[in-house]
């Protein structure tokens, strides 16, 4: 049987979630290569959009790919180049961040960023029926972050929750630690923190702990880092919940694409992997102790 080549282009592992995503991509490739000898994979990781475009160009020009699985660094800049790949007759699977023109991809496996924000906001509102003062840590300034924050703000509207301040923690533990320290110096009383990401939540928790403050009732992170899921599972009152945004969605996308390649029955369409609220009750379902994330 003829060998098929699948190219996988993802952003580099620059922070926890992306690291997890890298891990799942590699794990899926190793597994699939073993199962399907007729499949070849080309994996590349890029540290910015323009390098990702280089990677994709190279796959097309030199690796003769039959399918491309791409998690765009950013939607806009990747749209044209991915379109060129599709135009060359290559199967295209887009993951997580959609392209800015519809109908290019054959398969779309996506996270739901507005949903992520909304679920987070709704949870906050439910935990603070009388409202309260919170601070928010945002990710790297990107569309993803904007969508999440918009979803969040919409969900808490009218709930009496007051956002004291928002700063960018850039999905980074160190930055978030510093930002949270300064929030703590600045505000005498904070009821809760929406850290919006588990890496940031870790930094936030460390800052709170170090300051010895007990006004903060809980911190809500996100994306389902295993340590955080574990704490929710164990009923840690500071980390009562989580909102999923599974980095393993890349593995699903690769698998489905591979299946399409070997079975000649392409599975096209759109798979939205919704963001789910994780609490002590259902935490076990989302706990993957072997994942690096």
């Amino acid at each position, binding site marked *: 049987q003829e060998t098929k080549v699948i190219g996988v282009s993802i952003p580099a592992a620059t922070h926890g979630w992306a690291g997890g995503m890298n891990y799942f991509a590699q794990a899926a490739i190793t597994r699939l290569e073993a199962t399907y000898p007729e499949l070849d994979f080309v994996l590349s990781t890029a540290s910015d959009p323009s390098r990702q475009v280089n990677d994709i160009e*190279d796959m097309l020009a*030199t690796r003769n790919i039959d399918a491309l699985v791409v998690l765009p660094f950013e939607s806009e*800049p*990747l749209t*044209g180049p991915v379109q060129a790949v599709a135009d060359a007759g290559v199967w295209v699977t887009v993951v997580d961040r959609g392209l800015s023109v519809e109908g290019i991809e054959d398969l779309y496996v996506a996270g739901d960023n507005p949903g992520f924000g909304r679920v987070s906001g709704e949870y906050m509102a439910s935990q603070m029926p009388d409202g309260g003062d919170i601070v928010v840590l945002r990710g790297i300034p990107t569309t993803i*972050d*904007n969508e999440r924050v918009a979803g969040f703000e919409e969900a808490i509207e009218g709930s009496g929750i007051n956002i004291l301040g928002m700063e960018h923690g850039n999905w980074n533990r160190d930055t978030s630690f510093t930002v949270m320290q300064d929030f703590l110096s600045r505000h005498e009383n904070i009821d809760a923190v929406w850290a919006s990401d588990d890496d940031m939540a870790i930094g936030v928790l460390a800052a709170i702990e170090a300051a010895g403050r007990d006004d903060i009732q809980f911190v809500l992170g996100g994306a389902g880092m295993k340590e955080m899921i574990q704490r929710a599972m164990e009923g840690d009152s500071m980390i009562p919940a989580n909102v999923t945004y599974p980095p393993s969605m890349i593995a699903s996308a690769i698998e489905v694409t591979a299946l399409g390649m070997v079975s000649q029955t392409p599975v096209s369409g759109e798979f939205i992997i919704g963001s789910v609220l994780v609490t002590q009750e259902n935490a076990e379902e989302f706990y993957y102790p072997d994942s690096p994330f």
Partner: protein
Amino acid sequence: MNTSAKAPRKVSMGVIGPILALILLVIAGALMNSNFLDWNNISNVLARSAFIGIIAVGMTFVITAGGLDLSVGSMAAFIAGLMILVMNTALPVLGVGIPIVLLGMAVALLAGIVAGLLNGILITRLGIEAFIVTLGSMGIYRSLVTWLADGGTLSLDFTLRTFYQPVYYGGIFGVSWPIIVFALVVVVGEVLMRATAFGRHCAAIGSNDQVARYSAVRVARVRLLTYVMLGLLVGVATIMYVPRLGSASSATGLLWELEAIAAVIVGGTVLKGGFGRVWGTVIGVLILTLIGNILNLTDFVSPYLNGAIQGAIIILAVILQRGRKPGL
């Protein structure tokens, strides 16, 4: 005169070194993947070298004259953002067509010149270290583009983009525009450096600015000009960049400054100034771009280690051309 006994050998290794490194890379690439030498791949590599390459030519002058510019990457991002904003805004008035593209280009060139002028004035008139000024402006432009884009991405209107795209993807005789423009910039740069008073003055200033001043060279003006020229070239690079990706965000042009400086030095220009060569810079850029390309041609290492391989090759390329005495 035996006094210059060592000179020729030194020069020749400095000259052959980068070329040799480039040839070795090309051979490695060809061995690893049969498609490597396809015009298609070559053309891709050359076209994507163009951004850093055009900027690195300007950087060669700045460094030769004893300066440095860390702001070029974020300057490119800012100019791209500005250009997109202006073009989108003008769209209802001008409509899709040549005029609006020309407007965008004019904005990019102008913004580049102004940005270079600002850097240059702070450095030459106020006498602040180039490192600090451009580190500062790097932060400023990076912030400004984030702010212009409201934290997200600024995208060129889609129809406009389709119209503008040929500036990156089109070309003549199968050679795409970025390659042509890059080649032009290199030729002009090489001539400027070797065959004009300006080029000589840059080297003289970088070698010893006191001497240059005593020789009635207008030191501050020449230095200022190097920054303005670099700014202008950042504008030119952006004009090619925008049609490629059609957008600008805070991730645009990230680390271009380091790449451009590395290309200049791998090419044999001296970081402390006084000696520069444009053709060397071109080789430097090609080496850097090829490393990335070759790493994509094979998958013999963990992608996590790409950076390590790039780092090692950069060092090796310079070891090849080393002829300078140790102990420096």
